[in-house]
C-alpha cells in the first residue's frame, strides 16, 4: 500500500517543552490510522505538525521532515496555506463559525478563498453535507446559524466544512470526545465511508474506538512513538510491553 504521509525524525517543541520526540511514521493512503496514548503524550501535536497548524501556537517550532505525496511540507518555499487546503482538520470541540449560517459554514473555506460561483457553492454544500451524513437533518434549515444545531450535528458540520475544500487527508483531533455515544457512532460510520476517498488520521482517547474503526494504530507515550502497526496486531499481539500495559488498562 502506498504511503500518503511520512514523518522522518519529527520533533516538535512548545518553547522549551519537547512535545514530539523523533517520530518516524508512515501512514498508508486511503486508510484510517488511529493515534492513541495517554493525555499529554503528543498525539495532537503530532497531527498538528501534519498540516502545519503547530506553528500557529506562540513559540512553537518543528524539526525534521513531514513528507506528503513525496513533498516535504516544511521545505523552504512550501506554503502552509496550500498544505492546509490539501490536509483538512477537525478539532476536539466543534467550532462552527457562529456568525455564519449552516450554508456559509460549509462553504467557508471556498468563499474565504474567493469562490463566487453560486452554482459551485450550492453543489459543494449539498455534496459535503451528504458526505458528512448531515444533509437530511439540516437541508430545510440551511439559513440557520451554524451553532443552532446539536453538538453532534455541529461536529459533522465541521467535518462537512473540512470536506468542502476537497482535501486529500483528513486529520481528526479527538472529534468525538465532546459527543454522546449515538453521535459518536454516526461519526464513526461516516469515517468508515470516507476512507475510500480520503486518508484519515484520528487521534483518540478511546481505545475501543481505535479498535473499531482504524486499519492502523500508533501508540505514543511521553512524546515518543512506541509502536505502530496493523490495528488488529497491535491490540492482540503488542510487541512492546508498554503498549500491552496501556491497552490492558494498567496505566494511562
Amino acid at each position, binding site marked *: 500500500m502506498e504511503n500518503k504521509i511520512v514523518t522522518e525524525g519529527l520533533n516538535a517543541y512548545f518553547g522549551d517543552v519537547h512535545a514530539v520526540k523523533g517520530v518516524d511514521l508512515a501512514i498508508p493512503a486511503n486508510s484510517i490510522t488511529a493515534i492513541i496514548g495517554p493525555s499529554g503524550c503528543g498525539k495532537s501535536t503530532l497531527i498538528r505538525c501534519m498540516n502545519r497548524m503547530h506553528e*500557529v501556537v506562540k513559540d512553537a517550532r518543528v524539526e525534521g521532515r513531514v513528507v506528503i505525496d513525496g513533498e516535504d511540507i516544511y521545505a523552504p518555499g512550501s506554503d502552509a496555506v496550500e498544505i*492546509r487546503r490539501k490536509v*483538512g482538520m477537525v478539532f476536539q470541540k466543534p467550532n462552527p*463559525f457562529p*456568525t455564519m449560517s449552516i450554508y456559509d459554514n460549509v462553504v467557508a473555506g471556498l468563499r474565504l478563498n474567493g469562490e463566487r460561483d453560486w452554482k459551485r457553492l450550492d453543489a459543494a454544500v449539498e455534496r459535503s453535507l451528504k458526505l458528512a451524513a448531515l444533509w437530511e437533518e439540516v437541508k430545510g434549515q440551511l439559513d440557520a446559524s451554524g451553532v443552532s444545531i446539536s453538538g453532534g450535528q455541529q461536529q459533522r458540520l465541521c467535518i462537512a466544512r473540512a470536506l468542502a475544500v476537497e482535501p486529500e487527508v483528513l486529520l481528526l483531533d479527538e472529534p468525538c470526545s465532546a459527543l454522546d455515544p449515538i453521535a459518536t457512532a454516526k461519526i464513526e460510520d461516516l469515517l468508515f465511508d470516507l476512507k475510500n476517498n480520503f486518508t484519515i488520521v484520528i487521534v483518540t482517547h478511546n481505545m475501543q474506538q481505535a479498535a473499531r474503526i482504524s486499519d492502523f494504530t500508533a501508540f505514543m507515550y511521553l512524546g515518543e512513538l512506541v509502536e505502530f502497526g496493523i490495528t488488529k496486531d497491535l491490540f492482540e499481539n503488542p510487541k512492546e510491553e508498554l503498549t500491552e500495559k496501556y491497552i490492558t488498562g494498567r496505566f494511562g
Partner: protein
Amino acid sequence: MRSHKLRKRVDMAASLLAVGCVLVALIPLVSILVEVIRNGAPMLSWEFITDRTTSGVGNAILGSLQIVMYAAFIGLPVGILTGIYISEFGNNRMGSTIRFFNDVMANFPSIVVGLLVYAMLIVYLGMTYSIIVASVALSIIMIPIVANTTEESLKMVPNSLREGALALGVPRWRTVLKVVLSNGRSGVITGALLAVARVAGETAPLILTTMFSYFWTVSPNEPSAALPTLIFNYAMGYSSLTVDEAMRHAWGAALVLIMLVLSLNVSVRLLSMRRFKKNHKGARRWRTRLSLKA
C-alpha cells in the same frame, strides 16, 4: 438556627449596601440629566437649532458634526487597525511596545493633546485655527481608546475559530478580516462609538485649535464654532448676550449636545443590527433556489 439567622442578616446588609452604592452612583447621573433637561428644554426651538450664534446654536452643531466626522475619518481606521495589530499580530516585542505606548497615550490629558497639535500644526507649520486642526487633535484622543476596545473585543473571540479558519487553508489576514472581525464586530463598533461620543464633548483641545466663529463654517480650513466651545464661552460670559441669556443658551446647547451623542449611539446600533441580518446571503439565495424548484 442562630447562625442561619445571622447569615440572612449579613446577606441582607450586603445587598442593601450594594443597592445603596448604586443609588449614590446614580445621583450625579440623574441630576445632570434632570438639570440639563430642565434648563435646556425651554430653549429648544427650530430657530435655536438652526440659527447661527447669538440667536441660536446652528453653526455650532454644524461645526461639531464636521469636526467629529473628520476626526472619526482619521481616528477610527488608525485605531481599529492598531487594535487588530496588537490583538492578532502583536505577540512580539513590537506588539508589547505599541500596547505600552497606547496605554500611555490613552491617559494623556486632552489639554496636552490640544497643546501638542496647536504647537505642531498652528505654531510650527503655520496652519490656521480650523476644523481640520481640531479633528487631528480629537483623532489623537480617539486612537488609543479605539485601539484598546478593538483589542479587548478581538481577544474575546475564541481561538478555536481562528484555528478553524486557518485549518481550512484560509490565509491569516483573511481569517482576521472575515472570521475574527466578524465575530468581534459588535465590540469594535461599540468601542468606536464610545470614542466618538467621548470626543464629541471634548472642549480643551478645541479651544486651542478651532477658536470660535459666529458664522457658518463649511470649509475645513477655517475656524468654526462647536457645541462644547460654545457652552464654554457662554458659561464664562464671553459673549454679547446678557449673563442670563448666555446661561440659558449654554444649557440649551448642552441639551443639544447630549441628544446628538445619544442619537448617534442609537442610529449606529440600529445600523449594526441590520448588517447582521444581511450576513446570510448564501442561505437566502439557496432558499430562493429551492422555492423556484418547487
